[in-house]
């Protein structure tokens, strides 16, 4: 870490992650040093948060913005603009063209209920009303063979209706177009000729999967967000360019890879997980630092906890994503989110049982101790009562914490109704929160057939380092890894992200009898598109990697497993072995000699960004002094303990000390219990050894 006043060594990389409350920026210079800046997010115009956080860096380095941008080799950006457009229902007016007889698929939603017991809850509002879902004659069969020709006059009639109603963008989703896009392309060509509609989303281009509901839903959401999202990103890109940035900004996609604005303009729906998906890059970095490629990250913010699993160096990418109740079939890293964070509310129900979450207090009014009118006790209030946070200004003075307000909220709402003491109540809130976190980690691991004990837990996010050790202990893990920049986990992760684009073609065949040349003919157009995309980003030769996969299943199954083709070579025997092995791990059994069906071909194009390895920081010299010593409640067994508090910047690689102790870092506070031991590793991050005290 560098002192704030020092100037970075050019060239550098910048990652900017726009979160719900804060916009984070991490700058990594040529020497491997890191700087972190934060500015409040401006949800109405996220670019203001981006410019504000850049201004913080400009002020800190005493360097003009033009220099900051001109010497920036790679500018990564994670933006909530796609997600917020959906959450706030501020997208475009969409018209949908569907096959005659099937225009209601979007609204039937396959009848999927998120919580079946809560049957009084309505479905999310349908994004295209029925009167703007217009039928088009023509039909393809399951193999893409034309049964009835496309009725172009229906398209003409529909566009008249759309024009009359002020439709801004059009989505096209015809039956069986995943196997043959000809009808959709013909519609697009016709719409293109008329020139009235600059934004057209074809389901066969946006999400060429089998299954009309999910494909239609994805095309519609794409159409819904496109004008706003692409418009915003182009503006930001050209603004930064005009101020000196030479290379186009790189956007984080849901698949955990990056892409430039123009390359994602046709599929902005791929940006929905922009931000959290950058955890993939962060896990890649920490797997090298922690010396393990089996990691589970628990990123805990104010309202929620995102859990992500890396097994043998891979984070699973699926075609399933649900955002605010809308189903998207876009390549997305698997993230399990639960309502457990610093602002999570505790309550006692009318029959006398304590609950923690899933509701949160949000940024306003926030926890009771913020003094902004919040009366509900939160996890942060429990930290205060237990001495884990000190009263007074935090986060550069943006909030001032009042421990009396925290104590009163927990006393009135929890301790008194349960008939217990206020400290017992606060400790109970933490225990319940940590149980919820444990269950979330078990969910993502056990459900996929992984044993969580074989993983290192990475505790990230502003609130993660408070709970890393407790959750790791409950899981039976030996250690918890705490990044020093825990509160800027995603912004940092972006700096270690490759360019990535995924392409898919549904293809049905028998693994044992298929002609390899037919597969090759199927892969070829996907590979051509991937190569073109990478070339456009400036990646060719050894920097452009093509990765081929097959989706496979035993005959009769409804779900598939992806199996990689090493070197792109199709070897049916090797594929069968790999499939059986993965099936055994995920499902606990195989069908020896069973018929294996191919269901899809996939090509992933990856543009390799130069690896930025962790740089060894200067080792510790002598034992640093704590900045304070105060009473902190550890757990029910140890009770209140005199606990030293260290400034994070004083702890250097090689530092090692038994708990209890607290570390106050710029973006987080690390808690180490009395049985555990904290060390600072060579990469300048924290490692908590569970039950390591006294060793």
């Amino acid at each position, binding site marked *: 870490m560098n002192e704030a006043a020092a100037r970075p060594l050019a060239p550098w990389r910048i990652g900017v992650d726009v979160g719900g409350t804060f916009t984070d920026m991490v700058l990594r210079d040529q020497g491997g040093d890191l700087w972190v800046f934060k500015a409040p997010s401006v949800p109405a115009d996220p670019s203001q948060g981006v410019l504000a956080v850049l201004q913080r860096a400009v002020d800190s380095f005493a360097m003009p913005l033009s220099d900051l941008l001109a010497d920036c080799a790679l500018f990564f950006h994670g933006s909530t603009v796609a997600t917020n457009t959906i959450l706030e229902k501020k997208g475009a007016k969409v018209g949908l063209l569907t096959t005659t*007889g*099937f225009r*209601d*698929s979007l*609204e*039937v939603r*396959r*009848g*999927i*209920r998120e*919580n*079946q*017991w809560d*049957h*009084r809850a*309505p*479905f999310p509002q349908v994004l295209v*009303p*029925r*009167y703007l879902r217009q039928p088009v004659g023509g039909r393809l*069969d*399951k193999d893409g063979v034309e*049964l009835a020709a496309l009725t172009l006059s229906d398209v003409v009639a529909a566009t008249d209706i759309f024009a009359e109603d002020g439709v801004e963008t059009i989505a096209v989703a015809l*039956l*069986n177009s*995943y196997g043959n896009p000809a009808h959709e392309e013909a519609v697009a060509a016709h719409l293109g000729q008329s020139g009235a509609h600059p934004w057209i989303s074809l389901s066969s281009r946006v999400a060429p999967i*089998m*299954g*009309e509901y*999910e494909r239609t839903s994805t095309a519609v959401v794409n159409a819904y967000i496109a004008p706003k999202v692409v418009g915003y990103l182009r503006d930001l890109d050209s603004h930064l360019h005009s101020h000196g940035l030479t290379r186009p900004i790189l956007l984080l996609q849901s698949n955990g890879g990056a892409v430039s604005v123009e390359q994602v303009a046709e599929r902005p729906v791929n940006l929905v997980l922009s931000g959290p998906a950058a955890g993939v890059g962060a896990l890649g970095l920490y797997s090298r630092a922690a010396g393990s490629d089996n990691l589970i990250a628990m990123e805990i913010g104010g309202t929620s906890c995102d859990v992500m699993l890396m097994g043998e160096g891979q984070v699973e990418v699926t075609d399933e994503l649900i955002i605010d109740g809308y189903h998207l079939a876009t390549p997305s890293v698997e993230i399990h989110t639960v309502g457990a964070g610093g602002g999570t509310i505790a309550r006692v*129900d*009318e*029959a*006398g*049982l*304590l*609950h923690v979450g899933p509701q949160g207090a949000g940024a306003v009014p926030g926890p009771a101790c913020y003094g902004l009118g919040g009366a509900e006790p939160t996890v942060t209030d429990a930290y205060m009562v237990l001495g884990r946070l000190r009263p007074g200004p935090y986060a550069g003075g943006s909030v001032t914490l009042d421990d009396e307000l925290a104590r009163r909220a927990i006393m009135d709402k929890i301790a008194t109704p*349960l*008939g*217990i003491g206020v400290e*017992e*109540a606060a400790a*109970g809130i933490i*225990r*319940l929160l940590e*149980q919820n976190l444990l269950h979330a980690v*078990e*969910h993502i691991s*056990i*459900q996929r*057939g992984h044993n969580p004990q074989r993983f290192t837990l990475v505790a990230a996010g502003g609130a993660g380092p408070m709970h890393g050790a407790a959750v790791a202990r409950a899981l039976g893990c030996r250690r918890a890894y705490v990044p020093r920049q825990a509160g800027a986990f995603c912004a940092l992760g972006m700096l270690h992200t490759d360019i990535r684009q995924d392409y898919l073609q549904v293809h*049905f065949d028998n693994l044992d009898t298929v002609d390899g040349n037919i597969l090759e003919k199927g892969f070829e157009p996907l590979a051509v598109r991937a190569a073109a995309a990478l070339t456009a980003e400036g990646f060719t030769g050894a920097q452009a990697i093509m990765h081929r996969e097959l989706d496979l299943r035993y005959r*009769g*199954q*409804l*779900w598939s497993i992806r199996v990689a083709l090493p070197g792109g070579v199709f070897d049916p025997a090797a594929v069968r072995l790999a499939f059986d092995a993965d099936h055994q791990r*995920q*499902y*606990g*059994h195989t069908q020896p000699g069973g018929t294996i069906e191919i269901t899809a071909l996939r090509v992933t194009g990856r543009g390799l960004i130069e690896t930025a390895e962790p740089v060894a920081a200067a080792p510790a010299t002598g034992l640093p002094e704590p900045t304070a010593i105060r009473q902190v409640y550890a757990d029910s067994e140890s009770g209140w303990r005199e606990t030293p508090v260290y400034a994070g910047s004083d702890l250097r690689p090689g530092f090692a000390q038994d708990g209890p102790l607290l570390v106050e870092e710029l973006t987080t506070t690390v808690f180490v219990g009395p049985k555990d031991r904290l060390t600072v590793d060579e990469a300048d991050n924290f490692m908590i050894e569970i039950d390591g005290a006294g060793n």
Partner: protein
Amino acid sequence: MNTQENLDPIVLALVQNRLDHISHQMGWVMTRTARSPIFSQSHDFSCFIADPDGTLVSQADGIPIHTGGGGFAVRALLRDFDGDIHDGDVFVLNDPYTAGGNHLPDWVIARPVFAGGNLVAFACNRAHQSDIGGGAAGTYNSEAREIFHEGIRLPVMKLIEKGETRQDIWRLLMINTRTAEALDGDLRAMIGSTRIGADRIAALVEELGMAQYRDYFEGILEHADRSFRRCVSSIPDGDYRAEEAIDNDCFEPIDDAIRVRLGVKGEALEVDFTGTAPQVQGFKNSSVANTWSAVYMALASYFDPDLPRNEGTFRTVTITAPEGTIINALPPAAMTMNTVFVAHEIVHAIWKTLNQAVPERSCAGWAKAVHGTTSGRTGEASPFVMYHWNSAPGGGGVEGRDGFNQIGHLIALGGLVLPNVETYERLYPVLFKRQEFRTDAAGPGAYRGGTGCNFEVQVSVDAEYAFRGEGLYTPSCFGAAGGRAGEVGDMELTFADGGNEQAPKYAVRRYGPLTLRAASPGGGGWGDPRQRDPERVLRDIRDGVVSRQAGEDVYGVAVSADGKSIDEAATANLRAG
């Protein structure tokens, strides 16, 4: 009675969450390891935990019509194997008459959990098997008149004895199914899920201590009891009566009903089925376990979606279910259909009594499905069995929400997911022509019912059709709070020679290639349709699910000539009238 006073309230909350989490974990293992797609697609199973007396302490995982009924199976086990239950034993059962089963296809695997040498709990999994013998492939024999036509009956049996699988029993099970490979895999998945559950329960009990763990289990049941008593005490004291028609016995029309009296006195609730139709010759008779689950589902869904799912919730409820009736049949009545029909009717009957008692929470009826199955061969080794799920009917409205336009069975509260037609065209020899909302079929209301749909599919091979169209031709739902029932369902078959016929309500028939057209029924509406927000009526008219005429006649809303805005003056006139 209040155990909770001696308990640490924090630990109690932790134990409640942990038990529910363990039942979910068992469910993940089941979904991940089972062979049959039904488990990962439709989640047609449930995992549950009972205390050593057979009282259900958690059933957080599973479909609503399984909820609350698991204790019967464990109590049957305790009755039959008193003193002969050992660590490493695993039991199997399915019989609804002797073993606490709900219907034959749902098999229960029950594993006793030991800690410190003591029996401390049971970890259980109830799951619908792919085939159990009987008169029809796929467990549903529409022509069954006795339980003997429906498949193999299993009393409570030890399948694994102190860790050793009883091979004789295993072989017995495998020769009584048409799909031995699937049954073998699915049983192993069930057994595996209970093993994980048992390990986790034992660890929890050891953490709590042998002296204390029962108090915590009891504390959880008492919390559930208090929670539901609060719901009951919100119902005004009195007797509320309702009936739900039973108009066929799966073979012939009949004119009878489920009759229920809901007696409320303070915090006590009585559900009395005296006067209900006698058992019928077809396969929709209910067992005790299934009736209890249906009652549980009706009550829990009416009140709080977060009610704890354990038997404590039922302590204040008394059920009177006269023997020999359709809701508590005597052997050898057939009963495979009961988890759908007559469970649907039981839920409807109870909702109708509650609608009188607590009108502000009233629920309109969900229309019943019209579809059955088509089965045949396409050159594969085994025949296909296709359910016409895409003809699903409309759900009922509640205050603040219209009925779902198309939704799976009421007894799953939408937990059964409808397939994509593209998937079915790949799996079966069919071509879909239509799946579109109906016009003017939704039950009118301030919050209208679901529209139901117009459904059309061509089947290109000779096939057998098992019809079970409870939603055909006669009303199958009801309105609430002044709302009205939706339109009835209809089904017609058109053959290659151009001839056509109306589909029977119940029957098994063979046909050549044909086109099947159905109009599935609309759901019930909630509240006076003339109170419906005119903007919602306008939207329905623009959407084509309500006609202009019905807008005026039924809803009292007139729209402008271009159909895009409300004619305020004409509407005021209509609504004044």
